[in-house]
């Protein structure tokens, strides 16, 4: 049975049936008796002092049940940063309070300063318009460079707009400076990693219920990690005891990072539900999503690459300004630091790496992890400067990368940026990429494009990332305030089917299909008899959720460990039933047998016995068949890849079209290759979107100009080519039981520099001396670059 549904089978995603037939249950689908609606009053200015708020007229409007302002939350906690970063001088980062509702000052357009609870949405909106607020607008701090020199502070109480000034690794700084000073050649590049709006298909939504009978709260919310959300609300914000708060993230329509974090709206609806004694729901509209979902990226970087005369890399030195927006979101301090700086040695044997990151407060939406989270920024900087260096020294870009790759016999490899890579083979990835992409045929295709009046370019990239965001011991040393293990409970029911409760959360990743494949393979039973339970803190063990391509590597490993415990206990029960010793029991295709005999019992018979323990050796075995495991890995996992693409540029308009895109990834072992391919497709779409289309733009007053789909350019099907995706070159992760590495973010990490490199190549082939264009490479930007070349 598991042969067509176990590990390695391209099983179709079972959850897609409900998603595609409209029977998914999202937070906004939860409607209960007596439900009310919350609508927020949000700042229309980027920076301002709240001189007064008069809610009396609003409170008297029809249908209005309560009105809240920041004043109502002065005595509760703030939404904390999850990661403490220390500056180079040893000083801890600046952590201004992030309140439930803005109090005293509004700090970005969309910052909520009041909320109305009413019977209907329209009544609540009418009442929001009736709130009389006097906000004195102040000049906005938008540009990071200006912010660092300004005395106009986003948070007056910290007296600076710099959150931290971080050096990685500070002890490497002098050696890196010396290597660059003495180098044969140094290539320098200034670049922008453009801010992105996550744009999950399902906007955020939170619905709170309060049960007066037992003082318990239930929060349905769009979260990638319900336990983390509960922990933040309980321990930091509202102080609701964890055992009195159930957080349920049902079907969630995409997150990309933006639903990792706890947001003030969740705390507001909980507090409101208790105050009015009725359920309260808030559903974000698309404008609120643009203005208040945590954005991604937004780095401004100068990177230098030092080379010797043979093209060997001697050093990478990076200076980055990272925008954290108006408030620290939960992982906003980890993203530009430990998820970025530690990857700045790339796939290379480079001996010296130094990274300086200044995190900057601005009057813009908070910025946090977004698909890839720091690693795309690292890869983009590295792979762009390497491409520029190849052009400067006249070496083929593939050859230059190969010359500096870590070789297969060098693992485990201690990178100059402080990580220990466990496995990989970057030359093999590049070989496969050259083959499946028909790189040898590029010149002929370029000539064909030229005949059609188009400039064709080829771009290449090699990436490595750190996934399975985990080891608690490691991240603890690095400043994390949470552990990063995961957990699973495998419950074998009496009739032989299974419920597997997992700490990971599926919001597009296909866990409901892939995790049963693992359990089915181990037990030798039909995967359709196994269901995954996730997203409900009252049902699942304490897990850390899904982000950083961690679910299978961390939570999947917990599933393996729990299933191993099930097998051990089931063997004991089978041994009792077969009157044999445990050590002689073998499990094959769902049947327990005594080695060397024809005596056997099925998995189902053992399950039944566990729950109807007649004639059971209760002194040796407890009834039941249910096991839990927590798994905390030894290291990150290190997926890697070789990507290339071919673009055509219309020299008359500057419009770029991606003609071919090839992604060859080492994800280690693959559980479901079809889901993996789908994950790569999604990542590539987002990466190409970042490279060519997605244009988050604030004006000098802090107004978001691209605040709707009329101006924010999401990639559409006709913006994207057919992809060639290959994961045949897997090298198993050496330290988790499945040998898996993680695939969720790879496409978004590997593709942006590939596309930019190809566009630069196309322009160079047309005789335009253009060495860099910032993303998104809109037609206007490409055309302007050609005019100035």
């Amino acid at each position, binding site marked *: 049975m598991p042969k067509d549904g176990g590990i390695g089978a391209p099983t179709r995603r079972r959850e897609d049936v409900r998603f595609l037939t409209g029977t998914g249950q999202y937070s906004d689908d939860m409607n209960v008796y007596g439900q009310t609606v919350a609508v927020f009053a949000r700042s229309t200015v980027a920076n301002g002092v709240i001189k007064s708020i008069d809610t009396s007229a609003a409170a008297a409007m029809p249908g209005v049940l309560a009105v809240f302002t920041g004043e109502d939350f002065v005595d509760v906690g703030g939404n904390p940063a999850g990661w403490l970063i220390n500056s180079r001088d040893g000083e801890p980062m600046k952590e201004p309070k992030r309140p439930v509702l803005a109090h005293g000052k509004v700090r970005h357009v969309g910052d909520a300063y009041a909320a109305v609870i009413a019977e209907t949405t*329209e009544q609540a*909106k009418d009442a929001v318009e009736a709130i009389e607020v006097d906000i004195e607008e102040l000049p906005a701090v938008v540009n990071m460079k200006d912010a660092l020199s300004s005395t106009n502070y986003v948070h007056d109480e910290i007296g600076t707009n710099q959150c931290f000034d971080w050096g990685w690794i500070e002890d490497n700084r002098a050696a890196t400076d010396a290597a660059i000073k003495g180098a044969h050649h140094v290539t320098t590049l200034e670049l922008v990693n453009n801010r992105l709006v996550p744009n999950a298909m399902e906007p955020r939504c939170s619905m709170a219920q309060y049960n007066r009978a037992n003082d318990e709260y239930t929060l349905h919310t769009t979260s990638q990690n319900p336990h983390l959300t509960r922990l933040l609300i309980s321990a930091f914000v509202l102080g609701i005891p964890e055992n009195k708060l159930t957080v349920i993230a049902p079907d969630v329509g995409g997150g990309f990072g933006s639903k990792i974090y706890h947001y003030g709206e969740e705390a507001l609806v909980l507090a409101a539900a208790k105050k009015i004694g009725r359920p309260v729901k808030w559903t974000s509209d698309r*404008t609120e999503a643009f203005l208040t979902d945590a954005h991604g990226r937004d780095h401004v970087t100068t990177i230098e690459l030092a080379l010797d005369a043979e093209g060997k890399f001697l050093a990478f030195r990076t200076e980055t300004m990272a925008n954290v927006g108006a408030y620290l979101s939960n992982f906003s301090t980890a993203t530009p630091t430990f998820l970025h700086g530690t990857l700045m040695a790339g796939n290379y044997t480079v001996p010296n790496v130094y990274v300086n990151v200044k995190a900057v407060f601005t009057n813009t939406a908070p910025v946090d992890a977004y698909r890839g989270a720091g690693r795309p920024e690292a890869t983009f900087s590295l792979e762009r400067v390497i491409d520029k260096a190849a052009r400067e020294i006249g070496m083929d870009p593939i050859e230059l990368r190969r010359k500096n790759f870590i070789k297969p016999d060098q693992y485990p490899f201690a990178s100059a940026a402080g990580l220990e890579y466990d496995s990989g083979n970057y030359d093999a990835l590049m070989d496969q990429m050259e083959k499946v992409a028909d790189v040898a045929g590029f010149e002929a295709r370029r000539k064909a494009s030229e005949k059609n009046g188009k400039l064709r370019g080829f771009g290449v990239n090699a990436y490595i990332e750190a996934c399975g965001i985990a080891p608690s011991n490691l991240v603890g040393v690095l400043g994390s305030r949470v552990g990063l293990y995961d957990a699973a409970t495998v419950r074998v029911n009496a009739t032989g089917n299974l419920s597997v409760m997992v700490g990971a959360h599926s919001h597009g990743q296909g866990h409901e299909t892939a995790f049963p494949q693992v359990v089915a393979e181990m037990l030798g039973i039909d995967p359709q008899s196994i269901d995954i339970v996730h997203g409900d803190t009252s049902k699942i063990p304490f897990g850390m959720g899904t982000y950083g391509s961690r679910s299978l590597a961390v939570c999947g490993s917990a599933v393996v460990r729990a299933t191993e415990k099930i097998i051990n206990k089931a063997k004991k029960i089978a041994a009792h039933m077969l009157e044999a010793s445990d050590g002689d029991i073998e499990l094959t295709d769902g049947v327990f047998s005594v080695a060397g005999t024809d005596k056997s019992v099925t998995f189902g018979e053992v399950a039944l016995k566990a729950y109807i323990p007649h004639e059971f050796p209760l002194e040796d075995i407890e009834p039941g068949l249910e096991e839990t495991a927590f798994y905390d890995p030894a290291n990150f996992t290190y997926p890697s890849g070789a990507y290339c693409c071919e673009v055509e540029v219309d020299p*008359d*308009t500057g*419009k770029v079209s991606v003609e071919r895109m090839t992604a060859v990834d080492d994800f280690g072992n693959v559980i479901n290759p079809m889901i993996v391919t789908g994950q790569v497709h999604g990542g590539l779409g987002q990466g190409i979107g970042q490279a060519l*289309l997605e*244009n988050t*733009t604030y004006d000098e007053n802090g107004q978001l*100009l*691209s605040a709707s*789909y*009329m*101006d*924010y*350019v*999401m990639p559409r099907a006709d*913006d994207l080519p057919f992809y060639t995706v290959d994961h045949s070159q897997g090298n198993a992760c050496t330290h988790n039981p499945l040998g898996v590495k993680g695939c969720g973010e790879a496409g978004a990490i590997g593709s942006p520099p590939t596309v930019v490199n190809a566009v630069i190549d196309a322009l160079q082939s047309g005789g335009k001396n253009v060495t860099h264009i910032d993303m998104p490479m*809109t*037609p*206007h930007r490409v*055309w*302007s670059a050609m005019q100035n070349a």
Partner: protein
Amino acid sequence: MYAFDIERPATVAEAAAALGNEDAQALGGGQTLIPTLKQRLASPEKLVSLTGVAEMQGITSNGGTLTIGGAVTHADVAGDGSYKALSELASNIGDPAVRNRGTIGGSLANNDPSACYPAAALASGATIVTNTREIAADDYFVGLFETALDEGEIITAVKFPIPQKANYQKFLQPASRFALVGVFVAVTADGVRVAVTGASNEGVHRWTAAEDALSANFSADALDGLSVSADDLIADLHGSAEYRAHLVAVMTKRAVAAAS
């Protein structure tokens, strides 16, 4: 959105009467108005839906003139095919949902400076037929979201003389997929007409220098050396005025080359 009443008249006369009320607003396919209402950016007391008016439906071709009812959807114009360049233009407005709801009368009455239909109407020398009069396209487009329509006046039909040759080239604003710059070129018995949309702060307009050059020699080469001034062109996050000026010339050449 704010609460409003809605009327669904069956005749033009009923529609005109309904629109005589203060704070009444005509509703075509609603592809601009409904999102505006949802954002609470408008608060009409009454919407008068024109989609049920039988006289405003249908497409007829007669003696080289194509008459399209004011309530005809983009999808129906796209499927008609008797004026190829116009059908192609309609087939590339928005997405299928927009094309199945949006109407030609609604688009021309709104006169968005980046919409496609205004370019077709102006370049074709169309006539805007209303419940009270006929207005030549040259007199109809007044400026940004401004037309010659009086308050409550209804576009009941649009008459397009079918040109000898025509083509529309749209360079997409990549988010909205309106025209960043769109150029409609039509070869008529009276000469070539070139209309530009998406580019100007004044809305759709004719490029007369190109018309003169193309009337003398209808080839892309005839446009060599011609350019439009960037003065008073739209500049936004998708393109500068200079870029739009450049695109006007590029799109005009492409329209000439593709005209059929």
